[in-house]
């Protein structure tokens, strides 16, 4: 079955620390890849997406993610987090020729000043 794994359930960082959130998926075919963010009290927002081309994609607010096909991974990174990055982060895949997003269980990030 298709699935997405986010191994970090809860991450606590201080401001200016570097961030890397892991995401692995199980699907043998072509996929589109996404990271969504849910700030406290707000709805899910698209952070970045990968469809094809350069495996290093840049999103909003200084986030980036790298697609490593051989590892079925799409890890999210940010060199220096801010308190305002406190949120829940969801990795998602969309198998090619389907329109459904398959989400991971999410990673809760807390950033302390």
């Amino acid at each position, binding site marked *: 079955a298709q699935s*997405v794994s986010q191994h970090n359930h809860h991450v606590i960082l201080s401001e200016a620390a570097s961030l890397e959130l892991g995401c692995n998926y199980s699907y043998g075919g072509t996929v*589109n890849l996404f990271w*969504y963010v849910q700030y406290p009290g*707000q*709805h*899910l*927002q*698209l952070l970045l*997406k990968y*469809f094809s081309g350069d495996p290093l994609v840049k999103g909003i607010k200084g986030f980036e993610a790298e697609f490593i096909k051989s590892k079925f991974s799409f890890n999210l990174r940010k060199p220096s987090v801010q308190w305002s990055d406190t949120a829940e982060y*969801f990795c*998602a895949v*969309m198998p090619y020729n*389907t*329109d*459904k*997003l*398959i*989400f*991971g*269980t*999410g990673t809760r990030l807390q950033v302390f000043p």
Partner: protein
Amino acid sequence: DAGVTQSPTHLIKTRGQQVTLRCSPKSGHDTVSWYQQALGQGPQFIFQYYEEEERQRGNFPDRFSGHQFPNYSSELNVNALLLGDSALYLCASSSRDRVETQYFGPGTRLLVL
């Protein structure tokens, strides 16, 4: 430009009852997808509507049904509610030619007692 809107924001029902949730897509979008997000989990795909027909369906029982209207708005109906149906129900809209980019609404939180 209005984003995706959902109503109601919160709902309390008892087991065995039926519920209808509503979604208006973002302006210019014609495709609506519904997701269920249980507490501590990522959203799970329920189904997708386009041209007033269900196009794809996730692993949900027939108790979950939907409808799309000519103005592209959509309803999610759940019959014979179970305690396990308690969750946040998310609507996402997209345009058919870019269905991979989905915009989420704020959700309806359903509590089944």
